[in-house]
Each structure stands twice: as structure tokens, then as C-alpha cells.
């Protein structure tokens, strides 16, 4: 049996905002509808938003869901989250927000929260007359998971937004790979590509250094992005100084905010290595990436 939080069960047994919102002749009010999923896939959500036209504010939100306990609870949570927001504010609601509202979901059920986020996007895009990115079966290479009809666009997005690093996680979040499994290797390739792209984004030309560092808020960095950024600061700003003194530094590991480095050359045997760590390396990384970073030296294996 799944281990659901009390909040999930509460919203399943007593769902809030279930039902439809029908278009009325009310002045300055329109209804936006978004539909995602399908009966073939085993879960589907139709989201209704009542929007105040002149302010873009969501006056009411309701759902109709075909799906399991967590799909129903996620839908209900979504409607609670977006009521009172403007459409732009609502677009910033992520599947993580939905899962957090519920006190978490089992990993294998995270796709229910993704469905909620997508329905929200669909409703707002429909309202604004914007075409959503959808997969096209004729578009060679775009459809990755034929069992559940999942495109590479969607897989890439969910990898980025949720910092996913394994195909199993991708399956939990968007179902891709959960059928025959023949696309799992392709999903692995996509994960690697996204990781490479993220690293490249961070390792942009030096002239863009500041822009990149400020564009990506430290709190939103994925692990891969963070490591790449640390490496970049070490390579461009720290190592040249140490090399000039006959020393060097190599990134050994990153665990959360703990950065482990190998001090090499003259730095390895220097009596001031603690000062080097704190002033030359830690202070620089804190300045560039996050104030909570702590740098530690590790002993070389040989």
C-alpha cells in the first residue's frame, strides 16, 4: 500500500474545488480550461479557471480528475494553490509546489503533480491563445515514449525543473519509460544531454560570467549546475593565483554546501594552507555562488 501523507488522504476523501466552471455572461469574467492526460494513460485532468479579465486574477478554480488517490489530491491542491493568483503568478506554480502542498508524494506518484502543473499551463495558454509545445508523431525523433506518448520536450523540461538524474526518476515524474521500457536508454541519453547543456550554460564565455552567475539564483542551481559553477570559479579565479605560487587545487567532491578540494603542489605542504582554503578559495566561492559554502581539504589517496 502506498504511504500517503495525511494531507493527500484528506484531499482525496474530502476534495476541495471538485467540479466544473461553466462560462456565464458575467461581465469581465472568462473561463479558461486546460485538459491533460488521457484515459489510455490512466490519469487525466480537466482544470477550470474563472478569470477576471481586466486584472488577470484567478477568481475560482475547479477540477475534474480521472485517476488515483494522488491524482485527485494533486488536482485539489492545485486549485487551492492558484485561487487568488494572477495568471502570471500561477504560471510560476511548479509541480514541486503541488507536491509540497501535499506534504510530499510517493516518488512513483510524482507524475500526478506534473499533470497538475501541465493542466494549469494548458488552461492559461488556452486562455491566452498561445499554442503549447506538443509532440508531433510526424516530427521524427520528438516522441520518446510511445507507450505513454511523451515527447523529448516534456522529458527535458521535467529533468531541468526537478533536477532529475536517473531514468527511473523521469518515469516517476512523467511516466516515460514506464511501459515497455524500450525508451529508457534514450531517456538516459537525454539526461546526459541536459546535464551537458546545463554545464555549458554555466561555463559560458568569461564575458558572460557575471550574467550567468546572477541569472541562476544559487537556491535554484541543480547539483550538476552547482558543481560546474564551482569548477569554473576554481579554474578561472583561484587556480591562476595558486599556480603563480607553485601550488594548485583540484575539486574533489561536493556534498550539499560542503566543497572538498585537494590542495596540490606547494599548497599541499604549505603551513598556510588553512588560510589558502578560507581566504583564497572559500571566500571566493561564497562570493560567487553561495554564502553557505564551506571548503574542506581532503588528503590525497597516494
Amino acid at each position, binding site marked *: 500500500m502506498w504511504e500517503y501523507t495525511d494531507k493527500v488522504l484528506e484531499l482525496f476523501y474530502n476534495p476541495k474545488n471538485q467540479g466544473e466552471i461553466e462560462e456565464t455572461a458575467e461581465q469581465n469574467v472568462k473561463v479558461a480550461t486546460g485538459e491533460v492526460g488521457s*484515459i489510455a494513460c490512466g490519469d*487525466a485532468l480537466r482544470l477550470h479557471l474563472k478569470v477576471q479579465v481586466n486584472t488577470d486574477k484567478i477568481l475560482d478554480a475547479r477540477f475534474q480528475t480521472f485517476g488515483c488517490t494522488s491524482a485527485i489530491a494533486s488536482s485539489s491542491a492545485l486549485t487551492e494553490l492558484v485561487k487568488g493568483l494572477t495568471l502570471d503568478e500561477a504560471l510560476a506554480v511548479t509541480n514541486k509546489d503541488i507536491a509540497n502542498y501535499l506534504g510530499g508524494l510517493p516518488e512513483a506518484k510524482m507524475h500526478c503533480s506534473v499533470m497538475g502543473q501541465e493542466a494549469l499551463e494548458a488552461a492559461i495558454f488556452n486562455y491566452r491563445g498561445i499554442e503549447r509545445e506538443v509532440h508531433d508523431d510526424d516530427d521524427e525523433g520528438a516522441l520518446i515514449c510511445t507507450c505513454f506518448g511523451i515527447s523529448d520536450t516534456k522529458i527535458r523540461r521535467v529533468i531541468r525543473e526537478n533536477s532529475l538524474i536517473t531514468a527511473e526518476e523521469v518515469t516517476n515524474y512523467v511516466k516515460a519509460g514506464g511501459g515497455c521500457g524500450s525508451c529508457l536508454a534514450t531517456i538516459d541519453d537525454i539526461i546526459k544531454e541536459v546535464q551537458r547543456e546545463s554545464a555549458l550554460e554555466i561555463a559560458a564565455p568569461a564575458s558572460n560570467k557575471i550574467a550567468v552567475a546572477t541569472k541562476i539564483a544559487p537556491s535554484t542551481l541543480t547539483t550538476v549546475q552547482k558543481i560546474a559553477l564551482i569548477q569554473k570559479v576554481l579554474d578561472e579565479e583561484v587556480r591562476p593565483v595558486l599556480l603563480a605560487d607553485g601550488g594548485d587545487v583540484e575539486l574533489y567532491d561536493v556534498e550539499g554546501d560542503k566543497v572538498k578540494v585537494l590542495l596540490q603542489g606547494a599548497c599541499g605542504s604549505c603551513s598556510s594552507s588553512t588560510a589558502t582554503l578560507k581566504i583564497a578559495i572559500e571566500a571566493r566561492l561564497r562570493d560567487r555562488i553561495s554564502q553557505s559554502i564551506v571548503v574542506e581539504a581532503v588528503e590525497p589517496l597516494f
Partner: protein
Amino acid sequence: MQKNCIYLDNNATTKVDPEVVEAMMPYMTDFYGNPSSMHTFGGQVGKAVKQARQQVAALLGADDSEIIFTSCGTEGDNAAIRAALLAQPEKRHIITTQVEHPAVLNVCKQLETQGYTVTYLSVNGKGQLDLDELEASLTGNTALVTIMYANNETGVIFPIEQIGLRVKEYGAIFHVDAVQAVGKIPLNMKTSTVDMLTMSGHKIHAPKGVGVLYVRRGVRFRPFIIGGQQERGRRSGTENVPGIIALGKAAELEMLHLEEATKRERKLRDRLEQAILTKIPDCEVNGDPTQRLPNTTNIGFKYIEGEAILLYLNQHGICASSGSACSSGSLEPSHVLRAMGLPYTILHGSIRFSLCRYTTEAEIDQVIAVMPDIIQRLRDMSPFKNDQAGWLQAQTLAHR
């Protein structure tokens, strides 16, 4: 921990009969000797194991020497398949069905990676096999035909003896996974075409962790578990004595209750089924309505999802199970229901109720009382209210 409930999930596991518990307890406390030991203390345990073997053999209509105690149904299936292949190394073809238990299906899939060819026979909308398809699949290269006696999800019974006659014509070994059939329909291996048959203790009111593989005398058997010479070298490892004693007692009780319990369960099952079909629109029974285990009904409720139904049932203290993907941890709905080609509107919302001799009329009435409201509440939430719903119409409802 919840103790009292209306337990209608007996195809998953069963309550251990109090008489079974009573029979096995001394072998967990006082009589702990090793049945292989030479001393009297162990020897008396060996005698009890022998008696249990006779009790199981009687239930199956088999000879004592044809009974191998195993740890579970999965072990029995694995052992049978591998033994059959090891005994005929020149043959590289296996026939099974698309609706087998994973204990068979996953072994077959693994064997495909080792150079074996496997034919997975299809089923029709009622979950029945096409014997012509079987006939067409059999060749002189077929080493093994492994087919379940009754399906665990729908209760559909396959015509095992008709199948066996065809298998014998081609000289293949015939293994039957009878985990769901034993104790629910009478079996007689003496007059059967079956070469090997698997059963599991916890499906017949014995505890978990004990099972049996029946191997017809004369069928060449290569052991799967090798070690000491227990079970005449066909399944090594010190015996699970309390489990075996329990299984023996459970087998004896099944023989005693079989006829009466079968009639009673069928009556209660039909009462449940008819009430649901009458009171709730847009639902149907999955599987062959007549060639079916007397204790099982699998009902598909259109436009809603199974796990959600289960959770509402759970709220009422009712235990059932679902073939829906969301309840299983898999993302695909039941492979059995999919193989039957059920439409998506039914596929995801199917619930299995499986009864046993402890099921009461009052319990069935309680289920009948709560089901309409549960289904209505979920359908009120669903965007798919009927087949004419626009969004649904736009989707393919056929089997993928």
C-alpha cells in the same frame, strides 16, 4: 495495525486456519528436531513431515513420492520450468500464455535472453485461450508448455486436460501453475495429463513460506536448489517443518470443506456480482462467466480508476484488489486485462473481489451497501462520465 476487516482479497493470500495454527505450533516450540537427524527426536519430526506429504498428496490425487515441498509458488514455477529445460537440453522452445503470473512470465522472458524461443498464447475478451493457436504453436522442438490452471485476477479456468492431451502428442513436458486452483476445484493427478503442478500454502489457509511442486513419477527432474539430499535430492535445504505440517493440515481441511465451501462461495460471489451489476450502471464482469473459479469476481467500473476505489473501500474496512497501474507500483495496468483487450474505459477501473470459506453473507451485504456511493463519488469527480463525453470520444478507446 488493522485487524478486523471484510477480507475479500483471498486470491492474494488467506487467513491461516486456527486448526492449522494449532497443528503447526508444537513444531515451532517443542518438536524442533531436524527431520533428517538419526535420533528419535528428529525422527518423530520426520514422521510428521511424512504425514503432511500424504495429506497434500491426497488433496492433489497424487502419490506421496510425487510431492516436493518448496518455499512458495514462485519457487515451484521456477523449479518446474528450469527442470523441464535441463532435462531436454536439445529442445529450445517454450509455450506459455500472455496472462501467466510473473513467476512464470519473467522466467520465460529471462530464458528468451538465453537463446530460448517463447510463444506467448493470446486470450480472447473472456480471457480464454484458443486451442488452435496452441496446436499451431507446438512443434517437436517444444520442451515445455507452462500454463496456469486458473487466472489469479479473473478466476478464468483453462481447459487443462484438453491442453495436456495436445501437449503429450508432441512429447513436451506440461507444467501447470495451479496456485489459484488448488482448494477451489477438485484435482486428480492420477487421471491427469499434467506432468508438474505448482501450489502455494498461503492460498489455502496455511502460512506463507511453504509450497509444493508435484512432479509426476517418471518425469525427468533436474533440481533447481542443490545441497543436501532433502526431498530426495530434488529440493535441498532443511525443511520448513512448521510450514509443511501446516500445509498438510490445510490440505486435509481443504478436502473436508471443498464441496460445501465451493457452493457457498459461488453463491455469495454471485450475490455480490449481481447486486453490483444491478445497482451500479456502466460496469461489467471481466472474464468467462462460467469457466471461472467460484470465489472470484473481477468487475470493471467505467470512467474511474481502481486505486481510488480501493482506498474508499479501505475506508470502510473492506480489502479487495485492483488491476490498475496506480495500485501496483507499475505504470501499466494489469497485463491480464490488457491481454483480454478490454477498453481503456474499463481497464483502469477493475476491482477483484475474492472470497473464502470464512466470508459471510453480512460481509457481502456490507460491500453491496457501500459500493454504489463509492462509485458515484468518483464518477462525480471524473471528466469521463459516459462514452459520449467529448474528450473521451477524441481518444482511442481500443486496446493498445
